[in-house]
């Protein structure tokens, strides 16, 4: 069973790295931000898997915090680029 | 009940800062009381050290290593007194300097935090704790340097912040390596284990490099003159007299207490050569400076050079009385410069305030208008040049005799040239000050601002030289 989890972990990490490529290469900020959010989701999943494999329930809290706070960056981002700001 | 006064040196200013934040209307009173109490605590600490020897306070009652210990020996006690007195005098000056309640409410809490940081740094003997105190010192110093809000000050403060951060990060990298190698952060505990191996060498380089950046040793000095010259006068005084010296103090501590196993006589040259360059370059720039505060700032670059030059000579001497005497000389020079430079910056602040700017070409007639201030500048000048009876005279004398004893003429030439340039830049200012003015004014006297500056300069130019006899043997016993 741990082997399966471990494998899933590696696969998720691989998708994370693959996901970086458009992020680094793309020219549009919005696209980058969306990819960053996708990475966030990916990261939350990865941490949850690690919590199981390393037998560290505390990592579930990390995933929770990560998920909660990723929202703020998005809001801060959309707010600045949405054109609502003329100050 | 025995009270370890050394804790108070950190606790009092922190408490003062809290009260000043929470109660802005009374911040000036709180600040003055705190500065006074801290000076008293520093003097008491010095007395206690003289009576019973080095002291240690284990924070939280945990053994050092697991916990953090504050340690004070004669060297740190002397620095505590320097910090206490310079800050006290500058505080008195600041009560007259800052007029608006808004300015005061911003100045005093940061000022007290800076004081806490300086004392905490001097007392700390835990390498990571030193990092935290360095950051506290850096951030408070930057905020205070930006206090005037002018574009030049903000620019200088930003550069100061970036350099300071870079310096402390590099220092932290060294600490990380030492922990990797020796598994503890307690300075004496590491000192007993250290031997000449790559990890220790790298840590030495990183920690020293980071600190030299913060101490503005040539050629890493580029950020200092603008930051010090654009800050409010009491802040400049403390930045030049104490904050850069804190970096020097740490380098001295590290090289003498932590890394002696690594040092060969020639290692000291790594500090000595930039030191010599700093003496020449700084003095020359000070000579060319158009503004009084800029002159003072470049003079700091030069004076720091002497201290590092002294360290280079120190490491070439075998332990023994000659070395102890030179060590005493270096400390005496550091103290003299601290008092003199604080006095000079405070005086420059008064000049700036009275005449609207501090251009040296505009100083004409100052001797008549501001006799006390002119006298202050003259006394500070005596100490900066190193004329007798200043403390710097004795310090330089030791420097020269050590260099001659080692047969190294080059250092002698550097010191002599530096002193001649110092004489030139001091007399350039005094000559303008005594020159007649087209519109002779009545003398102004503001005791609250003039006397602290005069007192600081007098300590540097007279007291430290005359009264240094007792300092010497004590410092010698320490290393």
């Amino acid at each position, binding site marked *: 069973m741990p082997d399966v989890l471990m494998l899933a972990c590696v696969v998720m990490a691989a998708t994370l790295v693959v996901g970086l490529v458009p992020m680094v290469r793309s020219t549009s900020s919005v696209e980058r931000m969306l990819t960053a959010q996708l990475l966030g989701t990916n990261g939350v999943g990865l941490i949850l898997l690690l919590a199981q494999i390393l037998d560290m329930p505390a990592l579930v809290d990390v995933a929770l915090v990560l998920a909660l706070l990723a929202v703020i960056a998005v809001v801060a981002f959309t707010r600045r680029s949405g054109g609502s700001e003329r100050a | 009940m025995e009270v370890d006064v050394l804790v108070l040196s950190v606790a009092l200013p922190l408490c003062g800062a809290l009260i000043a934040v929470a109660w802005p209307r009374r911040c000036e009173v709180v600040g003055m009381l705190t500065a006074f109490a801290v000076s008293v605590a520093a003097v008491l600490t010095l007395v206690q050290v003289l009576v019973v020897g080095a002291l240690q306070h284990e924070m939280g009652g945990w053994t050092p290593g697991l916990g953090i210990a504050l340690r004070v020996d004669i060297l740190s006690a002397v620095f505590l007194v320097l910090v206490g007195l310079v800050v006290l005098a500058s505080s008195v000056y600041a009560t007259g300097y800052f007029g608006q309640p808004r300015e005061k409410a911003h100045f005093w809490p940061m000022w007290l935090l800076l004081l806490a940081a300086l004392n905490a740094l001097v007392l700390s003997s835990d390498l990571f704790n030193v990092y*935290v105190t360095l*950051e506290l010192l*850096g951030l408070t110093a*930057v905020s205070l340097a930006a206090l005037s*809000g002018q574009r030049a000050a903000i620019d200088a*403060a930003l550069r100061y912040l970036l350099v300071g951060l*870079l310096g402390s*990060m*590099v220092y*932290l990298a060294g600490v990380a390596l030492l922990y990797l190698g020796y598994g503890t952060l307690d300075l004496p505990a590491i000192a007993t284990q250290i031997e000449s191996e790559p990890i220790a060498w790298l840590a030495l380089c990183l920690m020293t490099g980071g600190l030299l950046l913060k101490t503005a040793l040539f050629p890493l000095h580029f950020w200092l003159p603008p930051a010090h010259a654009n800050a409010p006068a009491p802040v400049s005084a403390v930045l030049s007299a104490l904050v850069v010296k804190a970096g020097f103090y740490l380098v001295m501590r590290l090289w003498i207490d932590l890394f002696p196993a690594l040092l060969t006589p020639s290692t000291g040259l790594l500090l000595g050569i930039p030191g010599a360059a700093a003496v020449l370059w700084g003095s020359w720039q000070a000579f060319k400076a158009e503004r009084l505060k800029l002159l003072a700032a470049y003079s700091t670059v030069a004076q720091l050079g002497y201290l590092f030059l002294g360290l280079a000579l120190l490491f070439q001497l075998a332990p023994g009385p000659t070395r102890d005497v030179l060590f005493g000389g270096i400390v005496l020079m550091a103290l003299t410069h601290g008092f003199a430079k604080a006095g000079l910056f405070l005086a420059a602040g008064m000049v700036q305030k009275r005449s609207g700017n501090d251009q040296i070409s505009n100083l004409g007639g100052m001797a008549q208008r501001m006799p006390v201030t002119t006298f202050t500048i003259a006394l500070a000048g005596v100490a900066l040049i190193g004329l007798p009876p200043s403390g710097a005279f004795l310090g330089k004398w030791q420097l020269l005799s050590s260099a001659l004893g080692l047969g190294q003429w080059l250092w002698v030439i550097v010191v002599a040239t530096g002193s001649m340039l110092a004489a030139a830049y001091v007399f350039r200012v005094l000559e303008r000050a005594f020159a007649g003015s087209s519109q002779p004014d009545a003398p102004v006297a503001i005791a609250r601002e003039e006397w602290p500056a005069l007192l600081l300069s007098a300590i540097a130019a007279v007291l430290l030289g005359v009264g240094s006899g007792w300092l010497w043997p004590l410092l010698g016993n320490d290393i």
Partner: protein
Amino acid sequence: MIDTGVLYGLTGVALAAMGFRATLLEPEVIRKLLAINIMGVGIFLLMIATAYTGPDTAADPVLHALVLTGIVVAVSATALGLALERRRRDKDGS
């Protein structure tokens, strides 16, 4: 097999070097701040890698605590740097 501590420790050193270099050479202030933060992460990574002792054993808590302190300090400094930069731009704008 690769030793985990060494791998992450070396990565930390590399990140610190990248950050240090960029801090010196980058002309833009905000990017200088980013670079210093990256340098900080590099050093923290070296510390956390030192603390790591294997997938089944507890790591050294002292280093974890030090890094936590370091993170707070880094955030404080970054916030101050951003405020200074903002003030600088305000001055330029007016």
